[in-house]
C-alpha cells in the first residue's frame, strides 16, 4: 500500500511515518510533488501546530490536486489540524480557508474552568456505521492535544466530551479525519490506522 504523507511544514512527521511503516505501508513524503499525490493509493495529511500553516497547501498547488484525488475515490485521512482543514475553516486563522469538504467551521473550546489545550487520553463514542473506527470499543482511549475542534454533525464518526461534545473523528465515504493522534494512541491508534490502510468502500 503506497501512502503519500503531505508535509506542509507544520511540525514533525516522524511519528506518523513510523506508525504507517510499522503497519506495512510504503509511506512517502511530499511537500510539493503533485505526482506523488496523483498516484497515491492513500493520502494522509498530518499536522500539529497552527491552522495558518495550511496556507502552504494552496501556495504549492497541493489543494486542487488533493481535491481531485479525493473526488476520484482515493481514501484520505486528516490528523489533528489535518482534520480541521477538511472543514470550511477555523477561527484560529479566519482568513485562511479550509478544503470545505465539510461545510462547518472549527472553533476554539469555550472558556471554562477546564484547561485549554485539551491534552491527554480521552475516550470515543463511536458511531456504529464508522468504518475507520470499526472494532474500537466503548472505553478505549486515544491521545489528544488541541485547542480548536470541529462541531458534532451528521458526518461525525465519534464524539468526545471535553468542556463540550465535539467531533473527535469525521467520516464521509473516502474522506476521514481524526482530531486525536492515532500514531500516539497505542494499540487503539494502530487499529484505526490499519482500518484506514485497509479501507474499501464507496466514494462520497
Amino acid at each position, binding site marked *: 500500500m503506497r501512502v503519500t504523507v503531505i508535509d506542509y511544514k507544520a*511540525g*514533525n512527521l*516522524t511519528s506518523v511515518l513510523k506508525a504507517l511503516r510499522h503497519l506495512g505501508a510504503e509511506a512517502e513524503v511530499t511537500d510539493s510533488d503533485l505526482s506523488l499525490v496523483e498516484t497515491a493509493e492513500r493520502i494522509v495529511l498530518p499536522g500539529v*501546530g497552527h491552522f495558518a500553516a495550511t496556507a502552504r497547501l494552496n501556495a504549492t498547488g497541493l489543494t486542487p490536486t488533493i481535491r481531485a484525488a479525493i473526488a476520484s475515490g482515493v481514501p484520505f485521512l486528516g490528523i489533528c489540524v489535518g482534520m480541521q482543514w477538511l472543514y470550511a475553516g477555523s477561527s484560529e486563522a479566519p482568513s485562511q480557508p479550509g478544503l470545505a469538504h465539510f461545510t462547518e467551521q472549527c472553533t476554539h473550546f469555550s472558556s471554562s474552568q477546564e*484547561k485549554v489545550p485539551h*491534552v*491527554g487520553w480521552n475516550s470515543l463514542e463511536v458511531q456504529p456505521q464508522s468504518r475507520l473506527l470499526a472494532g474500537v470499543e466503548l472505553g478505549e482511549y486515544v491521545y489528544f*492535544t*488541541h485547542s480548536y475542534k470541529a462541531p458534532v454533525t451528521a458526518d461525525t464518526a465519534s464524539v468526545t466530551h*471535553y468542556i463540550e461534545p465535539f467531533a473527535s473523528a469525521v467520516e464521509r465515504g473516502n474522506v476521514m479525519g481524526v482530531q486525536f493522534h492515532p500514531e500516539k494512541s497505542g494499540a487503539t491508534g494502530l487499529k484505526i490506522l490499519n482500518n484506514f490502510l485497509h479501507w474499501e468502500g464507496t466514494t462520497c
Partner: protein
Amino acid sequence: MLTKRIIACLDVRDGRVVKGIQFVDLIDAGDPATQAARHAREGADEIVLLDITATHEGRATLLDTVRRTARELFVPFCVGGGIRTANDAAQVFDAGADKVSVNSAALSDPTLIDAIGRSFGAQAVVVAIDARRDPQAADPVRDAQVYVRGGRKLTGRRVVEWAREAESRGAGEILLTSMNSDGMRTGFDCELTAAVSESVGIPVIASGGAGTVAHFVDVFAHGKADAALAASIFHFGVSSARSLKEELAKSGVSVRLPC
C-alpha cells in the same frame, strides 16, 4: 472523559538507563528502548527519557538512543536533558521524540521556548521547573524559587511567575519537580503543584516525592495535577503503571483503563 496521565520516567546516561522504574519481578535490562517499550505495554500513558549525559560525545549517543526507543513506541514520547538550542530540539524530534523538555537552557535564554514552539508547536514544548520552597518568605508556596543544576543553584525567579512566562512564550506543558520532596517518599508538594496549576492554562505534570499510591491520589485531587511522573514505581508497592492506575481507579481517579 479526559484521564489523568501516569508518565514513566527513565534517566539515561551514555545510552543506558541509570535510574528508572524497576520492577520486582523483572531484571533491569538497562536498555532505554526495551524499558520504554515495556512501560508502554504495561500501561504507562507517556514516556519521558531524561538524558543526564554530561559529555559532548554523549549527544550522538542520545540521538541514537532516542531513535531506537522511538522506533516501536506508539505513545507520546518526551526527551529532556542537554537541549540548549532549537537545533538540538530539531535533531531530537527528527530522531522520533514528540516533545522536548527544556530546563536550564530556557532559563538562560527564555526565547528558546518561543523558538521551539514556533517550529514544532506548543504541544511539543515542555518546560521543566525545579522548585524549592523559600522558608524565609512570607508565602513559601507563592514565593517558591526556581533552581537549576539539580537544585544547587538559585536563579532568582519565582516558580509561579516563571511558569506563567513559559506559558506566554508558548510552552505546552509544565513539568514541576519539588526539590523539597524529591526522593523523600513523603508525597508530592500538593500546595505548590496546585499554586502552579491554578496559575496557568496548560497542563502541569507533578514530580518528586511519591512514596505510595495515596500520594498520587492526593496530587490529582488536591494538587490539581494533570499528570504525574512515576520515577520508581517499585517503591509504591505496585508492579507496573497498570497496577498503579488500577489502584487509582479504585480511589475515584479517572485513568486510562484498560490499557
